[in-house]
């Protein structure tokens, strides 16, 4: 066959038809409807856009939330509902928790070094895994427990206007996680200062840090806690868990006598493991 026939059979662009098709797609006027209802478009949770809504935050707002988590009485009673509940972010909780894990591991090593004062000292990288287990469990489990207790014990059936600021309100799980993540921020400077080997100062830091951020936690959660019949139980639980987290890390990694005994323990267990290995192998 010749080239002339080939060209005859080749596809042609039908520009006119393409234009008319576009017009027919655009012609139904759906745009004003979308503008009237500001609902967020449905995005699958396997797309990155789904997670971008949890990182929709500016530097100034992150700084504001960190400051709010440390100064008691700075956040209003409706802070959880009007601020964190509206736009809960995961940027702060994630990076504050990560920073705290590494400051605890690094300054724990530094404290150990200062206690030994020996250049033959070896660092212990595996503090990172212990610290991360504790902190991630705390940030995930505590909000879940509080949220489920509130969900179980608060009855929202009374017909008060939900638009009012004082209306009963159960915070979402995400906003409690956000609140808890930011409440850890105070422990970052505290864990750095724990390296100073004065027992009295370490205890002051534990009590001060736990009081500052713990009182914000309780103050912010108070409107919801009051509705529950286990309110006293919840308050004691929140405060003591926050204190125990700080005191536990301090006694385990930074305090002089406990830290040295911990090391002896680890050496002993190492030797036991080795002797067991020798016997079996």
């Amino acid at each position, binding site marked *: *066959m*010749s080239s*002339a*026939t080939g*060209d*005859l059979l*080749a*596809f*042609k*662009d039908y520009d006119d038809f393409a234009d008319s098709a576009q017009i027919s797609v655009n012609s139904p006027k759906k745009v004003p409807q979308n503008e009237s209802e500001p609902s967020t478009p449905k995005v699958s949770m396997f797309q*990155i856009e789904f*997670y*971008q809504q*949890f*990182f929709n*935050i*500016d*530097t*100034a707002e*992150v700084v504001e939330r960190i400051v709010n988590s440390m100064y008691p009485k700075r956040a209003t009673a409706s802070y959880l509902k009007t601020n964190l509940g509206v736009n809960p972010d995961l*940027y702060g909780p994630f*990076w504050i928790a*990560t*920073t705290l894990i*590494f400051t605890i591991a*690094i300054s724990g*090593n530094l404290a150990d070094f200062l206690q030994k004062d020996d*250049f*033959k*000292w*070896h*660092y*212990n*990288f*595996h503090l990172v895994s212990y610290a991360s287990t504790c902190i991630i469990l705390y940030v995930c489990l505590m909000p879940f427990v509080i949220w489920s207790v509130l969900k179980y014990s608060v009855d929202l059936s009374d017909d008060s206007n939900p638009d009012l600021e004082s209306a009963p309100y159960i915070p979402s799980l995400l906003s409690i996680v956000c609140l808890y993540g930011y409440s850890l921020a105070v422990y970052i400077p505290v864990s750095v200062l724990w390296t100073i080997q004065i027992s009295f100062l370490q205890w002051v830091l534990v009590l001060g840090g736990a009081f500052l951020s713990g009182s914000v936690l309780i103050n912010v959660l108070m409107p919801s806690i009051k509705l529950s019949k286990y309110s006293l139980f919840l308050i004691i639980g929140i405060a003591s868990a926050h204190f125990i987290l700080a005191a536990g890390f301090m006694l385990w990694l930074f305090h002089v006598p406990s830290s040295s005994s911990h090391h002896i323990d680890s050496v002993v267990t*190492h*030797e036991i*493991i*080795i002797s067991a290995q020798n016997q079996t192998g």
Partner: protein
Amino acid sequence: MTDEQTKLDIFEDVDSSALAGSMTVSSKPSSTKAQPGASDFNSLDEPIKETFLRDVRAVGSKFKHVLYPKEKNTLLKSWDLWGPLVLCTFMATILQGNTENSRNNDGGPEFAEVFVIVWIGAMIVTLNTKLLGGQISFFQSVCVLGYCLMPLVLALIACTVILRLGNSYVFFIMRLAATTIGFIWATYATMNFMGDSQPKNRKALAVYPMFLFYFIISWLVVSHSNV
């Protein structure tokens, strides 16, 4: 069968001269479209040595751009992960703790732990940039973060040399100084490459994780005490 006959068989009532005009018009754009994508050199018939050396030179020039961060397009436009792989493997080999003799155990990370910290760390930092709405592709960012480990690798080499000289207060200060310089250098180079990818009001949020990433690796470098 001749040309004239075929045409007449298919389109009996169409004037053949009119069609000839439209044929050339429709066929022209498709032939020009194929041109821009084609490269002007052919790597099929060149010796393997040349292919290999070209890639090595590309990696080497990227290292140079990291150490002397002035021009930012080379690293961003043609990313590769060879450099990060080499740097990460080198660091993991040197940093890994001695697990054979438990009395000598320096408590350092395992080989795989360094690997995980570097790669997963770079991915998390990249994901953070993407989630904040940064205008950079995933592998571009991992490439930049990996290549910018270069100053810290140099610091690690310096630390290993200093450790062989001795282990006392003065030598520790020297190690600390070397690592601090490496850390500042790495962070500065990364900012230079990635600083523009975020809107102004979120720049600090994107930069902080990078700072943390290099800070953690610097901690590993300065704490390394196993010769």
